[in-house]
């Protein structure tokens, strides 16, 4: 049904004209336009510290979005990421009550993320269940456990050093989170576009059966992708918990939608098989700039969500509308 509009995801050296017409270029143009519009609309926009603050709007989500991009390219999806954040954060909060070291806290957060990812992975790859339903289930389950543990309470009292991950600055206005975001972007970009593993991810997304017969261990690759998504959610949980300084069971509620929006906005085909990390990086900036710019104009958060929703539909609908009208 949709196989005709799926382009072959090779990143061979393409002519300049083709590259100019690519999704990433279009998105970059949108990002620059938003940047200019923002600086015209608000006098407070072009300020190094304000821009640095703006990055916090997307760094945590983008970290998950990188792993999610790989997962969606491979034809699966994980809707439980925000709930993994809640569970990992709850585990860290519980541990923090016993005065453990910051390193232990981080390790706990990451291992809970990995464990949740492994749980999804087992259900999807070993039992052969559809990932969208499994992760809708684990989305309730993981956050549900947080609610059982915390109820209407909150964990506080994180050690002082723990606040570095979400509030620390590496150099001048460059925050730790932003550096982490940049490093992860490079790692994921290399993994997806320059390694055999990345080729396998595309192959699985385009034709899982074909990939299996060409010697790719499909289930193992998918298992690793779910683990990675869990791990990234664990990392995001460390950053978010550190930035907020407290844990409630509703932490990061609804974030999975923003992560998926970011991935789709970045040009990843929701049906799998194509997409790129540079696209996701630019999409992260677009979303961050839109929410921050609207924030400076005193637009309430829920109205921003209209923009995000319209952006999600619009970026997919407009090119299709355009090609329909041209015919």
């Amino acid at each position, binding site marked *: 049904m949709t196989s005709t509009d799926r382009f072959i995801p090779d990143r061979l050296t393409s002519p300049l004209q083709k590259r100019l017409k690519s999704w990433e270029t279009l998105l970059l143009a949108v990002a620059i336009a938003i940047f200019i519009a923002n600086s015209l609309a608000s006098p407070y926009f072009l300020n190094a510290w304000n821009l640095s603050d703006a990055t916090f709007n997307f760094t945590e989500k983008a970290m998950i979005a990188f792993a999610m991009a790989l997962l969606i390219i491979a034809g699966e999806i994980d809707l439980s990421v925000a709930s993994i954040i809640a569970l990992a954060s709850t585990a860290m909060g519980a541990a923090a009550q016993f005065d453990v070291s910051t390193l232990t806290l981080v390790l706990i957060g990451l291992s809970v993320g990995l464990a949740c990812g492994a749980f999804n992975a087992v259900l999807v790859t070993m*039992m052969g269940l559809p990932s969208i339903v499994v992760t809708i*289930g684990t989305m309730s389950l993981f956050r549900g456990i947080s609610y059982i543990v915390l109820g209407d309470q909150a964990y506080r009292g994180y050690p002082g050093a723990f606040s570095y991950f979400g509030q620390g600055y590496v150099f001048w206005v460059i925050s730790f989170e932003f550096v982490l975001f940049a490093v992860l972007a490079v790692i994921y970009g290399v993994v997806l576009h320059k390694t055999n593993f990345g080729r396998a991810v595309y192959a699985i997304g385009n034709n899982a059966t074909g990939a299996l017969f060409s010697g790719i261990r499909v289930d193992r690759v998918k298992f690793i992708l779910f683990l990675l998504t869990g791990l990234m959610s664990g990392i995001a949980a460390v950053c978010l918990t550190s930035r907020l300084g407290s844990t409630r069971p509703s932490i990061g509620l609804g974030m999975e*939608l923003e992560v998926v929006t970011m991935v789709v906005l970045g040009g990843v085909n*929701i049906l799998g098989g194509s997409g790129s990390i540079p696209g996701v990086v630019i999409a992260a900036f677009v979303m961050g700039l839109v929410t921050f710019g609207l924030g400076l104009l005193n637009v*309430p958060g829920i109205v921003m*969500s*209209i923009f995000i*929703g319209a952006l999600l539909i619009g970026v997919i609908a407009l090119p299709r509308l355009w090609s329909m009208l041209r015919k």
Partner: protein
Amino acid sequence: MKQLIKSREAILTAAIVVLLGLIATRFPAFVTPGNLAAVFNDTSPLIILAIGQMIVILTKCIDLSVAATLALTGMVCAMINVAAPGVPVFVIVAVAIGMGMALGAFNGVLTWKLGIPPIVVTLGTMTIYRGIIFLISDGKWVNSHEMTPAFKALPRVAFLGLPALSWLAIAIILIAFVAMTRTTLGRAFFAVGGNPHAAVYTGINVGRTQFWAFVASGGLAGLTGYLWVSRYAVAYVDIALGFELDVVAACVIGGIAISGGIGSVGGAVLGAIFLGVIKNALPVVNISPFWQMAISGSAIIIAIAVNTRAGRSKGRVILKKTEAEA
């Protein structure tokens, strides 16, 4: 295949009976007819929404915007009632259904005409519809004392011992049952999900059928929006937030295959009742309501594991056999 669905519904019915039995051993008051009727009434909105969602899932789509559609129409109904208290309730109900259908039609057109994957469409409209509530209401609540008594009374009108809300749910179950098994469109929903290519060759327009599925789901969500607001006598931005997951959960537990084509009205209703019984039983057996979320999550995972094992696709089996022989 029919046999399989029947047995699946039988399993679910047995599970509900066992659940009720377990509760009854310690809290006999829970299984009195009066209380069971109350549980059914409380579950009615979920049942109505699950039927709409079932139709959408049958056609290989998913509607994540049901809760937002519900909330938006509910808010509009409440605001109409406040602005023009003279408008009769049946007009408001008609507006609710019509508006819900229009919101569903928007989802449907994007899926049908532009070929955008339904999960993306409804993820987007979910946030858009929810945002529009804030825009039109300015974030304010519409409270009980602002609504007219007639507006609030409809779901509570008792008839033969059951409130109108329950009767509406029963009526919708019956209509849906007839529509799904005895009409061309109803069969088309199954055909589109079961095998879209074969459906095209039998003269079914796949996109249009999916469009009507979204319209049906939207219309039911719109109706539920009015019922919800009038029953709880309050309307605000966050009503039914996250309820779409309960609705999808009810369908999955009810044996509706997420890959489309397999399911039944009975399954969706039983799935909803299963969740409704758990939700109502938790406070009775003295478990904190905070357990609800984890329990419905586990129920989804167990249900999907059982269902997928029962209905594992044949293509997969052949592939594995070939692999083993080679």
